[in-house]
């Protein structure tokens, strides 16, 4: 062991930042740094870990819903369904400042029950809502923030792969985790809506009202059919899951079929539209897989080099009181969340954090919800912010990654507020936390 793991951690972060700042694609930058890490720390024979991680990711079942959601979203966006939906919303809400933004956030919260992973919802909203909000002259930063922050709720509102993996890792009740995640999830959603309403009233230019005269009720009603196709698709996807017809991933497939049928019946389905949606799906899936791979290889390499032990020793070195320890862990999750994807963090940190959390007598369900809210932040925090990547993979090319991250700041604050609430006032979140009593 020539190089200390602490030094190596710094080399890793500095090297990574240097590479991505000069524009090296992030997936390759982190993949390369992962390779450097194992090469320096273990030796060339350990480079086999790159293929192991690549292969493991490629055959991950839950990932399958990503191309399906992208396909569904591309079809909706290429047809006029998305446009009609937002025309209808605008018809009803043109004189309500921020109204379309609020409805988008509400839709995202409902759709969060359709998908268990980060990404599916964001591409859906990114393709459907973003162009329409920009068309309605909503501020770009704000639109992006609404879409990514409320789209991330897919992993907070059940079903959630984050909670499932946490439950499997900690052998805690996934049913309980699902129940307990709802209130904090809705709280994030409610705060996002409150934020939209307040901010757009302070700075009206962020969500301009239409100059056109208000519509009569009759005119408004004539716009209502525009709402039907999207509502129909949501009902089909949610219905497939909750009536036990399909699994979570298959439900995304049902969504694709429902979308195709609706577009066909509207006589909008052309060969070009189909091929174009397919090509975009293919491109976006390749983009997403590559960047996700970069993050997972980094986690594997860091784990092999003894990262978890280093993290544990760092945190225990301070000899803190239980609640400060939890606080420190949240800080470390936030730091790790900036550079890694959540699966990497579960695998790296949980083996060292959880035994400590349990030994201190904390409720593992509560800790799981804390973790889940914390990961909401990680989806948005740069430089490795999966929500931004998913949006970027489908957004118009003129919207850069920096543009996307710029819109996130206020929404990260919202997530941190909820994180603090779950941490310090567990009893106000839900009844089930009343057993939360640290033993020491």
């Amino acid at each position, binding site marked *: 062991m020539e190089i200390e793991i602490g030094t190596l951690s710094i080399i890793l972060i500095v090297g990574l930042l240097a590479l991505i*700042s*000069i524009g090296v694609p992030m997936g390759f930058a982190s993949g*390369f740094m992962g390779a450097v890490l194992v090469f320096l720390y273990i030796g060339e024979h350990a480079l086999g870990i790159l293929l*192991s991680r690549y*292969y493991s990711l490629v055959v991950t079942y839950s990932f399958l819903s990503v191309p399906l959601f992208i396909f569904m979203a591309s079809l909706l966006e290429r047809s006029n369904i998305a446009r009609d939906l937002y025309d209808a919303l605008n018809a009803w809400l043109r004189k309500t400042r921020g109204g379309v933004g609020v409805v988008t956030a509400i839709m995202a919260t409902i759709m969060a029950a359709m998908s268990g992973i980060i990404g599916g919802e964001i591409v859906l909203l990114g393709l459907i809502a973003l162009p329409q909000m920009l068309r309605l002259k909503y501020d770009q930063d704000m639109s992006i923030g609404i879409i990514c922050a409320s789209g991330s709720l897919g992993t907070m509102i059940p079903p959630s792969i984050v909670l499932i993996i946490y439950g499997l890792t900690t052998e805690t009740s996934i049913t309980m985790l699902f129940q307990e995640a709802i209130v904090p999830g809705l709280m994030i959603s409610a705060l996002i809506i409150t934020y939209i309403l307040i901010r757009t009233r302070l700075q009206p230019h962020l969500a301009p009202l239409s100059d056109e005269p208000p519509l009569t009720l009759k005119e408004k009603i004539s716009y209502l059919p525009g709402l039907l196709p999207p509502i129909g698709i949501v009902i089909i996807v949610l219905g497939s899951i909750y009536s036990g017809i399909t699994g979570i991933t*298959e439900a995304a497939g049902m969504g694709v079929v429902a979308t195709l049928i609706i577009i066909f019946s509207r006589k909008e389905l052309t060969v070009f539209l189909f091929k174009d949606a397919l*090509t975009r799906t293919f491109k976006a899936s390749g*983009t997403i897989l590559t960047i996700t791979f970069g993050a997972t290889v980094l986690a594997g390499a860091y784990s092999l080099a003894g990262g978890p032990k280093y993290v544990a020793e760092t945190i225990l070195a301070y000899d803190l009181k239980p609640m400060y320890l939890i606080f420190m862990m949240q800080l470390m999750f936030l730091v790790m969340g900036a550079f890694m994807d959540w699966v990497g963090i579960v695998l790296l940190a949980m083996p060292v954090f959880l035994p400590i959390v349990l030994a201190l007598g904390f409720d593992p369900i509560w800790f799981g919800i804390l973790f889940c809210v914390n990961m909401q932040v990680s989806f948005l925090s740069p430089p490795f912010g999966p929500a931004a990547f998913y949006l970027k993979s489908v957004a118009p090319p003129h919207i850069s990654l920096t543009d996307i991250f710029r819109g996130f700041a206020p929404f990260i604050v919202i997530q941190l507020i909820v994180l603090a609430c779950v941490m310090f006032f567990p009893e106000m979140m839900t009844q089930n936390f009343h057993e939360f009593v640290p033993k020491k």
Partner: protein
Amino acid sequence: MLDKQLQEQNEKVASKDDFPINWIDRVSLFLSHTIKYLIPVIVLVMMYEIFMRYIMEKPTMWVNELCLWLAGICYLVGGVYATRLRSHIRIVLLYDWVSRPTQRIFDLISTIIIVLFAAAVIYGGMEDAYRSFINWERFATFWDPPIPATMKPLTLICVFLIAVQSVNNLIIDWRNPKEKQYDPSKDLK
């Protein structure tokens, strides 16, 4: 003088919203525009499973793994396609700010990193992929498809193609006034 000529020439190319294409691009394009049709196939077999399980009450033993397999192929080849379209996710804050000659240096470094990365994946995974392929390693399930035997070598092939495509991009973009992302719909006739 030459630089200016080239710049004009390339701006013309760029303004046509088209771009130089050589045989390497053609290989990527051919692969991508063939493999992408696996996505609707995934949807189809998935619907077949739902129909068989929910309506016929005769669940299949192969749909789940076939979907996994096909999707894996899509992600891997999709990575090559994304490379060709220059659509891999990157932070261009500094990149957009520096001069074109500096951008070329950045591009050169990027390409070297990608090539080194690919070399590391291939060097490190060669033995494992070869072993899986030669032993026709299967997925250890009832249907037992040869997923490891095919996907591990395919991963290495696609990583190799990504590296080749990156070098190709560097050569083509070197003369361009500015690197640009290509719109995938331009590929469609």
